C-alpha cells in the first residue's frame, strides 16, 4: 500500500512539475488608432517583462502583431516601441500595458502612441564676443560664433532628421492692431510665427541621437579663435554637427563653408532680402525647435499686417513645438513680452548683455549615470548664465554621424 502511494505521489509530483514549467504564448496586438500620421511603423519591438523576476523577452512584431512564445506564467508588463519615418522625420511610438496576468495563452492589446521627443535646448550662445583687431584702438564686435546645442533628455533614441529651428517673430507687445492672414478656421492662438525656418537634413534615418548625447548647430563652423577671426577669443566650432550655411550665403561671399560640417537646409525663408549670414540677435531671441506636422512649403507662408506695412511670416503650430526658450535684452524689456501659452513663460537675459561672451545653459544633475536636464517649462528656473560658453558641458556624449 505504501508503495503505491509513493508511486502515485511521484507521478502526481511529476505531473505538477510539468505544469510549473509549461510556457504560454502571448499575442500582442498593437492598437494603432491613436497614430495620426499616415505612415505607421513597419514593425515594433515588443518586450514582455516579468514584474517579479525582472526577466525580459523581446521580439520584433510583424506589422501590428507580435507573438511571444515561451512565456512562463506570471504577471508581466508589456511594452512596445516603434518608429516610422515620414517626409524625413522619424517619430517614435510606444505603449505599455502593465500587470498583465499570464496564466494561459493570452492576447494583449497595447495602444501605440507617439512619444513626444524629449529634445531640449541644452545651451544657447547668442551674445557674441569682443576682440581687438590689429591696429584698432577699440574692440570690435564678433558674432559669427553663435551656436545652439540640443540634448536628448530621454531614454530612447531620437532621430533629429528634419528637426526645425527658428526664432519667433513679433514677440513684444505693440499698440497697433495687427493681423495674421491665417487660412479659414485657424486660430492665431494656436500658432507662433517665424521668418526663417532652418531644417536638419537627412531622410529620417541618418542622424540618431542617443540618450545622453547632444548635437550642436553653429552659425559658422569655423575655428573662431584663429587670427583673422578673434585672435584668441571665442571658441573653436569647426567640429560641430551642422552649420547654418545655404547656397545663397556662400554666393554672397561673406562666410566660409566648412566642407567637413554638413549644412543645414533652408526650410523656408520669408522675405527676399539677401542673407549674408544667419545671425540672430545678440541680445537674444525667442528660440523654438519643432518637428512640423504639416510639411514646410512656400504655400504656407502668410502675411503679418501691423497697420502700416505687411511682412511675410511662416506659421509654426504650437503643438508641434518641442522646446522653447526666450532671451532678451534686460529686465525692462521683459515687461513688453508677449506670452505664448502653453509654451515656456520664462525670460532670460545675459547679465553683461550683447557681445559679452556669455551663454544660457540648462541646469541638470546626473541620475543613473546620465545627465538629466531640468525642464519645468519655465526657463527662469531651468537655465543659468555661464561666462564660458562651451560645447557638451557636463561631459555629455557627441553623436557619431560620420
Amino acid at each position, binding site marked *: 500500500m505504501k508503495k503505491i502511494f509513493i508511486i502515485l505521489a511521484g507521478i502526481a509530483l511529476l505531473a505538477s512539475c510539468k505544469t510549473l514549467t509549461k510556457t504560454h504564448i502571448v499575442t500582442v496586438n498593437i492598437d494603432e488608432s491613436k497614430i495620426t500620421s499616415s505612415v505607421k511603423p513597419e514593425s515594433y519591438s515588443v518586450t514582455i517583462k516579468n514584474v517579479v523576476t525582472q526577466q525580459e523577452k523581446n521580439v520584433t512584431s510583424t506589422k501590428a502583431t507580435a507573438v511571444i512564445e515561451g512565456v512562463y506564467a506570471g504577471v508581466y508588463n508589456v511594452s512596445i516601441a516603434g518608429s516610422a519615418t515620414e517626409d524625413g522625420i522619424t517619430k517614435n511610438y510606444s505603449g505599455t500595458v502593465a500587470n498583465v496576468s499570464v496564466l494561459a495563452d493570452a492576447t494583449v492589446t497595447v495602444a501605440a502612441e507617439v512619444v513626444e521627443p524629449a529634445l531640449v535646448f541644452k545651451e544657447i550662445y547668442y551674445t557674441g564676443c569682443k576682440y581687438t583687431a590689429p591696429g584698432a584702438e577699440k*574692440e*570690435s564686435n564678433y558674432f559669427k560664433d553663435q551656436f545652439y546645442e540640443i540634448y536628448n533628455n530621454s531614454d530612447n533614441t531620437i532621430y533629429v532628421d528634419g528637426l526645425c529651428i527658428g526664432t519667433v517673430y513679433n514677440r513684444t507687445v505693440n499698440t497697433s492692431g495687427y493681423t495674421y492672414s491665417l487660412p479659414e478656421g485657424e486660430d492665431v492662438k494656436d500658432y507662433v510665427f517665424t521668418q526663417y525656418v532652418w531644417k536638419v537634413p537627412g531622410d529620417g534615418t541618418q542622424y540618431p541621437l542617443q540618450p545622453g548625447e547632444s548635437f550642436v548647430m553653429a552659425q559658422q563652423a569655423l575655428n573662431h579663435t584663429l587670427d583673422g577671426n578673434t585672435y584668441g577669443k571665442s571658441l573653436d566650432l569647426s567640429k560641430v554637427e551642422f552649420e547654418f550655411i545655404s547656397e545663397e550665403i556662400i554666393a*554672397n561671399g*561673406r562666410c566660409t563653408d566648412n566642407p567637413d560640417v554638413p549644412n543645414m537646409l*533652408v526650410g523656408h*525663408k520669408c522675405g*527676399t532680402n539677401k542673407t549674408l549670414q544667419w545671425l540672430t540677435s545678440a541680445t537674444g531671441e525667442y528660440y523654438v525647435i519643432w518637428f512640423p506636422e504639416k510639411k514646410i512649403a512656400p504655400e504656407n507662408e502668410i502675411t503679418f499686417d501691423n497697420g502700416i506695412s505687411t*511682412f511675410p511670416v511662416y506659421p509654426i503650430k504650437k503643438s508641434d513645438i518641442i522646446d522653447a526658450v526666450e532671451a532678451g535684452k534686460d529686465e525692462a524689456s521683459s515687461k513688453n513680452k508677449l506670452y505664448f501659452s502653453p509654451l515656456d513663460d520664462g525670460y532670460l537675459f545675459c547679465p553683461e548683455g550683447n557681445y559679452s561672451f556669455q551663454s544660457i545653459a540648462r541646469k541638470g544633475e546626473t541620475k543613473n549615470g546620465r545627465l538629466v536636464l531640468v525642464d519645468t517649462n519655465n526657463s527662469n528656473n531651468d537655465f543659468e548664465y555661464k561666462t564660458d560658453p562651451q560645447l557638451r558641458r557636463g561631459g555629455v556624449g557627441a553623436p557619431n554621424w560620420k
Partner: protein
Amino acid sequence: MKRLFVLFLGLYVSLAALGAVAPGNSGAVSGKITAVSDNSPIAYAVVIAHPLEVYTTTASDGTFTISHLPEGEVTIAVEFIGYTKVSKKVTVVKDKTIKVDFALEEESFRLEEVTVIATGSDAGKSTSSIISRQAMDHLQTSSVKDVMTMLPGVSFSNPSLISAQTISLRTDDSGNTGGLAMNSLGTAIIVDGAPVSNNANMQALSPTVASGNMDVSLVGGTSPETGVDMRSLSTDNIESIEVIRGIPSVEYGDLTSGAVIIKSKAGKMPLSIRFKTNPNIYQISANKGFHAGKAGDFNIGADYAYSTNNLTSSYINFQRVNVKTLYTKTFAGNVTTNTSLQVGYGRDRRNRNPDDEQSATSSFSNNVDVRLASYGQWNAGKGFFKSLNYSVSASYADKHNFYETLAQNATGLFSTAMGASTITNTAGQVIKDSEGNPITSFAPGDENATAIVTPNAYLSHYDIYGKEINVYAKLVANFFHKFGTSIDSRTIVGVDFKTDGNVGQGLVLPTDAPPLRTGTNASSGYRPRKYSDIPFINQLGVFLEETWNQTVWNRHIDISAGLRFDYVNGLTNLAPRINASIEIVPDIFSIKGGWGITSKAPTATYLYPQATYSDLVNYSNRFLGYEHELVVGTTNVHDSSNPQLKMATNRKAEVGFDITIAKRYKINVTAYDELMRNGYSFGSDISTFIWTQHVFYKNINSDPNLMPTLAVDKVLNLFFRYNKPLNDVYLHNRGIEYEINLGRFEAIRTSFYINGAWTYTESSSSANTFTTKSNGGNAEYNVAVYDPYLYTYCSEKVLTTLRITHNIPAIGFVVTLSGQVNWLGKTWTKFGNDEMFSQYISYKDGKVYDFDPALKDDPEFRYMFESKSPQRFLPEKTPPFVIFNLNISKEIGNFLTASFFVNNVFNSRPLNESDKIKGNYNELGIPMFFGLDINIKIK
C-alpha cells in the same frame, strides 16, 4: 520751333546791323563823382551808360567821360563800394559833351532808405533777385546760401558751415531720384565774371559701385554730383549778389537751373574788421581798399571761419581761411580791368567720436584753392561797335579726402587684379583642377596680383587726392544802335571757352585694408584710380543776343532774345532763350514772359566713370585652421561709361505781370514751369546686369591639412550689377512766385515787403527700376524689370513771408521782423505699376523676357514679388505754422555797427504726427537760433 526762332533772331540782328543811321552821330557825357559827406572825389567809381551797357571808371580826381553815345536819352548810373547807387537820365546831344555830376552818399543804416530785402530785376530781363551789401550785413550771412532765404518761396533755415552748402533754385525735391542734386549741379556760380566750376571734382568713392558714394555728408568736402560748395567763398568780400532764377541771358552757359552772380568788393574803402558769432560759427574778417594813385586801386580781404554743428560734438568741425585781393585799373581812359587773386583753405574734419567705441570713424577733407580772375572792358567807341568785354580765370584746387573706419563683419574677397583674371592668394601661383584643367588665368598686368579674404574686422582707410584745374575765357563784342528816338537795340556776340580737368593722384587704397564692400553685390570691389589719366573736358560756346527796347504809344516794350551753341567733348546743344516785357498801362501794368532752353555739360565723373570690378570667391578654406590656406578668386572688369550720354537740358518757361500802384506800391507775380527730362545720375539699365556662370570648387583631398586639390563642385548662374551714368533724372518744377513791395511809409518809418510762392515739384527717373530678390536659400535668382517712372515724388508747398522793416535814421537803427507762414506742405509719391514687373532677366541664360502676369504664383517667380502696403499712397501733410525772425542792426558812434538776429523768436516748434506712421512725430520749423555781428570801420 527752333528754326523759326533762329530766323527771327537773324532778322533782328541784321536790322540792327544795317542800322540806317551812320556812325559819327554821337555825343558824350562827362562829369565828376564826389562823396556827399566831404566833397572828396571818388576814384574808380563805375559809371555805366544804360542801355548800351558801356562803362568806364572815374580817374583819381573823380572825373569820367563816356563818348560815342548815340543821340537821345541814356541813363547814367554810378556805383561804388560802400556808397549808394545813383542814376540819372541824360539827353545826349550830337557832337556835344553833357556835364553831369554825381554826389554819392555813404551807405549806412543812417540813411532814410535802407535796402535789406532782395530787389527784383528790370523789365525785359531774366527774373532775378538782387541782394545788396547792406542786406547781407543786416541778415548776417556767413555763406552765400544764407541769402537764398530772401528769395520767394524759400523756407527759413539756420546758417551752417558744417556740411557742403549748395544752392538749388525753384525746387523742393526731397525724393531720392537725384533731382535736387541735378538742380544744384545746374546752378552756375559766377564770381567776378568767371564761373566757379565743380566739373572736375571727383572727391568720392566710385559711384559705379554704389550711387550713394557721391553723398559725402558723412565724409566731408563737396560731392561731385551737386553744385559748387559755397563755403569756399567768404561773404564779407562780396559787394552784391544777383540770383537769376528765371531764364538767364545766353551769355551764361553750362547751367540748367539758373545762376548766382557774385561781385566782389573793389576799390578804395576804409579798413573794416568784422567779427561774427552764432552757436555754430565763429568768423573774423578784415577788408581794406587802397588807392595807389596811377597804379590803380587795391582791395584786400582776409577771412577766417570756424564752425561746429553742435557744441557737444565739436569733433565735427569746419575751418576756412580765405585771402583775396582785387586790383582795379583803367588804362588810357578806355580800357578797364579788374583782376583778383584769391587763395583759400577749407578743412572739414570729423575726428573719432570719443563716445563711439565701435566704428572708430574719422575723416577729413582738406581743400586749398587758388584762383586768378580778370574781367574788363575796352571801349571801342566807333560806330555801332561799342565795346569788347573780356573775362578770364584760371583756378587750381588741391583736395585731399581721407576716411578711416573700423570695417566690421568684413570677411570678403579683396583682389588686386585689374583685369579679367582668376588668381589665388599667392602671387603668380598657377593651379589646375583635379582633371588637369587650368583654374588660374592672368590678364596682362595681373601676373603678381593676389586675392585674399579679409578678416572679420580691420581698420580700413582710403585717400582721395584731387588736383582740379579750371580755365575759362570769354570775349563779348557789344553793339548798340538807336533807331530814331524810340528804339534801342543792343546786340552782343560772344564766345567762351572752358576747360576742366583733374591731375590728381586719385583714389589710393592700402594693400590689404580696402573700404568695406557691399556684401550682396560682387561688383563692389574698389580699385585705385589715377585721376590724371582722365581727359580734360573742353567746352566751347558761341552766343548771340539781341536786346530790343521800344516805346510804342508811350508804352515800353523790352525784348531780349538770344541763341547759344555749345560744344562739349563731342556733344552739342543749341539753346534759344527769350525774355520779354510789354507795358499795357504805362507805368502801372505790364506783362512779361520768357522761354528758353538751358544745358549743362556732363562733369568728369559722368563722362569718365571708373570701370567696375566684380570679385567673387571660387574657393576658400581660410579661418578653418588648416595648414595650407588657399583662396581662389575671379575678377571681371566692365567699362561703366555711357557713350550715349547726352547733355542735360532744362526747358524753362515763365509768364507774369507787374503792377505799380500810386507810383510806389509794386506787385510782381511770376508763374513758371521748368522741365528737365534727362538729368544726370548713376543708375541701372539692362546692360548693367552682367550674367556670368561662376564656378565653385571643392577640395577632394581627404586630408585637409595637405594642399587642396580642387574639383568643380557646382556652377551657378549669377548676376553682377553696377551703376553707370544715365540721363534719367526727370525734374518738373512749377510754381507761382509773388512779391508785394509796399515801400517805406515815412510817417511810421516802416517799410513792408511780402513775398511768397506756391511751388510744386515732381521728380522721377525715366530708367527702369530693377529688383533682385533671393529665392529662399538658393543663390540663383531672376532680375525683375519694372516700368520707367515707377516712383514720382511730389512735393507741394505754399509759403508767404512778410518782412517789416523799421528804421530810425538819426540813430542808425534798423530792425526787421520777418514772419513766414507755411500754409501748406505736402509730400506724396505717385506709383506706377509697382506690383507687377513687365519683364525679367532670366538667370538661366541672362536674356530679357516679357513676364506673363498669370505666372505670379509660379514657384519659379513667386519670390520676385514683395507685398506692398496700401499706406504708401498716403500723403504726408503738415498743418500751417509760423516762424518769426528778428534782425536788428545799430550803428554805434561813427565806426561801429552791431547786428543781432534771432531766428524763430518764439521757439515755436509744433509737433506734427506723421500721416503714414502713426505715433511718429517730427518737429516743424527750425530750432531757435541767434547770432551777433560786430563791424568796425577805421577810416
